[in-house]
């Protein structure tokens, strides 16, 4: 079995980790646009009950000394934020009426 990416308390999300532990917004945005809504909802529904708990877990560490597994969990949280827009607000991967508009995030703090 592949090495666990997430803290053991969040092992139930390992099956989502490979796809959704993404370090940057451009990667998360692309993944959202290129994943069918059914699959987005599977991730969203699975993560929702423990969304807040996952934030609290990461929040126990300082921003600059997150262990690797907590950092992966933070990236999963960021993906949850990203897909929440599709599930809760628009019901589609792309924002309504955004047509062919593109907006690139070109700078952001890490992590």
């Amino acid at each position, binding site marked *: 079995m592949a090495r666990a990416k997430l803290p053991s308390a969040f092992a139930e999300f390992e099956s989502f980790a490979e796809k959704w532990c993404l370090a940057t*917004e451009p990667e998360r945005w692309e993944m959202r646009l290129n994943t069918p809504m059914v699959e987005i909802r599977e991730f969203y529904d699975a993560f*929702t009950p423990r*969304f*807040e708990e996952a*934030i609290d877990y*990461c*929040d126990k*560490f*300082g*921003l600059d000394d*997150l262990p690797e597994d907590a950092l992966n969990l*933070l990236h999963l*949280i*960021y993906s*949850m*934020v*990203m897909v*929440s*827009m599709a599930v*809760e*607000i*628009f019901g589609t991967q*792309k*924002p*309504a*009426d*955004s*047509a*062919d*508009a*593109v*907006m*690139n*995030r*070109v*700078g*952001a*703090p890490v*992590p």
Partner: protein
Amino acid sequence: MAKWPKPAEGSWTEHYPELGTGPISFRDSISPEFYELEREAVFKRAWLNVGRIEEVPRVGSYFTKEIDAARTSVIVVKGKDEQIRAFYNICRHRGNKLVWNDFPNEETKGGCRQFTCKYHGWRYDLKGELTFVQQEGEFFGLDSSRYGLKPVHCDVWNGFIFINFDPEPQWSLREFLGPMITALDDYPFGLMTERYDFAAENNSNWKIFADAFQEYYHVPSLHSQQVPSAVRQPNASFECGHFQIDGPHRLVSTAGTRRWKLDPDYMYPVERVTRSGLVGPWRTPETHFSAGLNPGGIEPWGITNFQIFPNLEILIYHGWYLLYRYWPTSHNTHKFEAYNAFHPARSVRERIEHEVASVVLKEFALQDAGMLGGTQAALEYDIVDDYPLSDQEILVRHLHKVSVDWVEEYQAQRAPVGV
């Protein structure tokens, strides 16, 4: 029914009688000829914001800026004397573009002790002086003191770096900004250094895009998703508390109930979990006060949106701000730059709050950008040219009027004197 009192004249628009109340033309946004005039009359005469002092933190820190409207590239650099200067990005020897990295037309940034031209190795110090010429003896009476980099006027207001392409600017930067903007002298922008930056190429005139961010009349219609569907009102309206105009600049303030005081039904689940969303983190480190921040005395104050002519918008929320710049690239395209600026996160939870606000910003800005491509295309039918504007759209009226005024004034100055 009006929620906010209007000026004694009966409307914000009539409070500024020079604006008129009739339908307006948008030909200034579809005409290539007007754009050519605007480049000279507006973008080569106004002070233009190109960055923040945090972008040149150390001696030798620099960035380049491609400014299509002026068909030029500029180097902004911090000198040994800590002064920030701007130069045209051109080597004085054979005209090579001096500073670029992988491709000459792409902006770059970094740190250096001097600038060295890739072509023949001429060097310039951080003040732009020519300090080294390869095989200087082969030249004919070369006076290196006459071949420093060509300067561009550069000044800083409250940490914002502005440049001006006019060889002799008509106003100092402070005069240009005027009392309404410089009333923010003490607003601590310098504390909000955690940035999320965005860039886009949009298919609309720069003013048409700016228009969508200087009125909120469109919000209930285009951005109905800003509140969950269960609490959406079919005929929702939006009224701003205060409008103000000072010279070429504009502002609008709106009221805002603090997000966490709203009924939970008015929030999306992601907002409740992360305590952040459309109007940013619910509880930022603090709300900063400044005499210029809420000149209309709106309570509860929500945001004030400063539109600094021509192409800068600074939107101040509680304890964070958002900045937009619109850089025209033709009469019907522009480059859009935006960023969110927060107090540096002190914890993972605060960083997540910033991420959420930045994700939401993109969602709704994409709606504006997508739709405005359609606006531009339809305006270019050039079938209609009398567009009625409401009192809520006073700032749209003002931006177009000022742009046309500047162009006409420029033309008048250049017209031959009559006999």
